[in-house]
């Protein structure tokens, strides 16, 4: 299946540093249309479109929007999560650096629909270029009356402020991000209440990923029903895929839901170079499952990915050929999460230390059956009982490896007869 460019259609053709260019090519036209619509009708279109969050969890967008819109407490906030910290993901950066105004248009539509008056655009601190471009875009939007009071001659007021991270991975988690916006250290909160009830400064907050907002202008344009025809029945629209690893043409590709992982790797990415063979592929990023080559016909959609007990909606595909060592990969992943845990809940704070020790045993070829049992049990407990997405998803690479590459663990046991 070829690419189906919607969100990324104008990229390469549009000057990201010129709002004039963006306006000429139709940006903010859908905002104009949306501002003439009833807020509830607008959310209804999103419901018909069946838009689901593109940040990872895949939560239905209209539920969040309606829940925020219904709140009486004001001010309401819209937060755009551009803290793309998941290793292997770079599609939000691609959007920010190449078409910032499509993002702003999406945010403005969401703000109008929910009655929000203030926005926070939270960008990962390392994304210097994206930060500069978004700042420029926001300034230009202000100068052109697209932010501020009485936007496009309506009675809709909205302003947005950029916030940057300071290197923490976990602030990509919604409540850790909200805490960070409030000036606190990035640690998650207990749910409920959810952000739509009590988010930034205790006020109703709609928080979504960059890519999710970008879909709104297209839904307004074609109508929810037409939008819902793209992709599969239950996973509608397109998905931006960050393709990386041992692949001929790494990069960002936009495909309709339903495309298989193999199609992305082989048809779009040009397969593995130099006649090497795919050994394993990690989906979603460091927090996603590692699957073997024979599973690559897996369709990219929310339902299939949920079967892995994983929230891989972020859309990264990391290809690893036969030269890569599973345990080296797992070591790198577990060390990363051990470093990034906020340290709040027990399973994540204390668990990663032991996860690392146990994986290390196998990495060295020193594993034993007790350690295999402990590793599996610990990974599952962390997955089931951690407080936020970090601790819940970080062991998925291990859990999936234990399912699909179990023999590799046996081979790395001290007396297992395998390679040392």
């Amino acid at each position: 299946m070829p690419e189906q460019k919607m969100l990324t259609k104008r990229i390469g053709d549009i000057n990201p540093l010129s709002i004039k260019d963006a306006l000429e090519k139709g940006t903010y036209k859908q905002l104009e249309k949306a501002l003439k619509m009833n807020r509830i009708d607008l959310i209804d279109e999103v419901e018909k479109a069946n838009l689901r969050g593109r940040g990872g969890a895949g939560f239905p967008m209209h539920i969040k929007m309606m829940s925020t819109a219904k709140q009486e407490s004001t001010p309401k906030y819209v937060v755009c999560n551009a803290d793309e910290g998941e290793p292997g993901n770079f599609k939000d950066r691609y959007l920010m650096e190449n078409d910032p105004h499509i993002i702003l248009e999406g945010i403005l539509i969401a703000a109008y629909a929910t009655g929000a008056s203030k926005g926070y655009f939270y960008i990962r601190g390392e994304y210097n270029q994206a930060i500069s471009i978004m700042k420029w875009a926001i300034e230009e939007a202000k100068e052109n009356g697209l932010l501020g009071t009485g936007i496009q001659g309506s009675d809709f007021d909205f302003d947005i402020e950029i916030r940057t991270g300071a290197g923490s991975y976990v602030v990509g988690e919604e409540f850790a991000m909200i805490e960070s916006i409030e000036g606190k250290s990035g640690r998650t909160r207990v749910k409920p209440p959810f952000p739509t009830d009590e988010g930034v400064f205790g006020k109703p907050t709609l928080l979504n990923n960059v890519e999710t907002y970008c879909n709104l202008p297209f839904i307004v344009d074609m109508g929810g029903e037409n939008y819902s025809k793209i992709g599969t029945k239950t996973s509608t629209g397109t998905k931006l895929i960050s393709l990386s690893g041992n692949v001929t043409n790494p990069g960002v590709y936009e495909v309709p839901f339903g495309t298989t992982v193999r199609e992305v790797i082989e048809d779009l990415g040009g397969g593995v170079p130099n006649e090497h063979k795919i050994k394993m592929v990690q989906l979603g990023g460091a927090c996603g499952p590692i699957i073997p080559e024979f599973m690559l016909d897996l369709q990219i959609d929310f339902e299939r990915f949920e079967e892995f007990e994983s929230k891989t909606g972020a859309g990264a595909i990391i290809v690893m050929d036969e030269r890569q060592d599973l345990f080296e990969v797992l070591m790198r992943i577990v060390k990363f999460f051990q470093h990034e845990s906020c340290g709040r809940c027990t399973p994540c704070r204390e668990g990663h230390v032991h996860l690392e020790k146990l994986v290390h045993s196998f990495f060295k070829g020193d594993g034993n059956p007790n350690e295999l049992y402990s590793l599996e049990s610990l990974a599952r407990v962390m997955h089931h009982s951690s407080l936020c997405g970090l601790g819940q998803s970080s062991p998925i690479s291990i859990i999936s490896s234990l399912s699909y590459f179990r023999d590799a663990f046996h081979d790395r046991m001290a007396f297992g007869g395998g390679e040392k």
Partner: protein
Amino acid sequence: MINLKINGIDVEAKEGSTVLDAAKEYGFDIPTLCYYPDLRINSDCRVCSVEVAGSNHLMTACSTPVKEGMEVKTNTSKVYNARKTITELILANHDTNCTTCARNLNCELQDLANTLGIEENRFEKVLEMDAVDDHNPSIYRNPNRCIKCGRCIEVCKDVEGTYVLENQGRSNEVKVAPKYGKYLSEEDCTFCGQCASVCPVAAITEKDDTQRVFDAINNPNKHVIVQVAPAIRVAIGEEFGHKSGGQWTGQLITALKRLGFDRVFDTDFTADLTIIEEGHELLERVKTGGTLPMMTSCCPGWINYAEQQHPDMLEHLSTCKSPQQMFGALAKTYYAQSSGIDPSDMYVVSIMPCTAKKYEAGREEMQSNEGMQDVDAVLTTRELAKMIRSQGINFNNLKDGEFDTPFGITTGAAAIFGATGGVMEAALRTVSEVVNEKPLEKIEFEDVRGFDGIKEATVELGGNPVKVAVAHTLKHAETLISEVKAGKSDYAFIEVMTCPGGCIGGGGQPYGTTNKKRIERIESTYRVDDSMPVRKSHENPTIQKLYDDFLEKPLGKKSHNLLHTHYHPRHKKV
């Protein structure tokens, strides 16, 4: 009501209640660790995880509200394995030398491990020993025992509004400590000890002074006397298996005598004296246009807070020493003289519900004889219980004893000092009768009773209405202070107690103190008051005699030297 199923059983629960509450009601005990009644729920430890139908992830019972049709399972193997694993993880990073720990057999982590049947730990020990903080006289902080449950942070931040303890760092390097890893004494810690009272393990405890007291008792050259604060008698029984809400004055006195104290006295006596001095100070301030509102000064946590945070407010503090320090001053002057004992041969011990009292006793102003502290050692209720147990004294089999003279005859007014509003009520009983020159028709001032954070009352003094206010916890005190600073306060007199509920809820009281228990202790306090033959401080015959024989008159020269003090602004170290 909400209908749900717990372990297959139909359950009804109040709307807004949690799975933990609902399960408990129906006899399903879900173990908890970071959860503490009255504190904000963080669900950090994850020990109370349960299965909820429809979710693959486990949910924490403490934070999950009940929902119609919900199906909860509290004891599946998935749940049990999670709880056990989590507890093993905590133990792998905890100093598990239990037999040499202050909380041995009185430890929530030990209980949990025992409940879950943990007999070995699959996980390697990863504890890296860190230095303890014993740089202050009140609180001992041992990071090697800390399990990062966050209760101390919540009580410090949310209940007291003092923000001394915080999470430092991240991942497994998280430490619960004062900002920038400083000592408590370098930060604005008031030493109230609420952190110690909620700590499930021995990461924060009072500084143990029991050995010093044993040494004094065993020194034949020392005349060792002890004073007992009003709040001890309504709490000590809880240390020996009794339910809260009782009073154990008689057994307490006998236990102290059996421990070997030469004289057992009552801090209630100097509480009465405080009322006389403080009452007259208030009237003097009103008469001469002194600084108003006057604020009470019996609570050392509050004094620390005022000196640290509001150095410009010190004029508002009553100059009266606290009852503990009035006792110490009189013990080493009046009592020493009248009993012919050299004050340097005397050793004064206080039993207090409070950890800040340890700090107060060491203040340099608290020396009636040069170079000699008036109070030599302060023990908390918990430390006293420890001493009693260690000496094989069977508290529950003790017959009632009586306080020794001259500091043994007290009033109901002094008894209620331990409850929030009690000092105010005692003062009002005396001040109204002194000013109005006629006996009160009703001596209970109901408006200043109860558990509200801030209470106020208006009383008639000499035909004029006078407004007073009472605050417990520093967070609520802060509200009253901002009003005073903004010039919006029309109170003449304000009582401040640092601990929730007043001294009966102090940081040195038996473990497991909750607001429910605090309220029961307060009720018990008022019952003690009701049962007293004399219920107004100025009618205490021994107080009258003390003025006749020694002090001469309230606010007189001797009082000024012995019973009053001054305060120092403390500059923040940044």
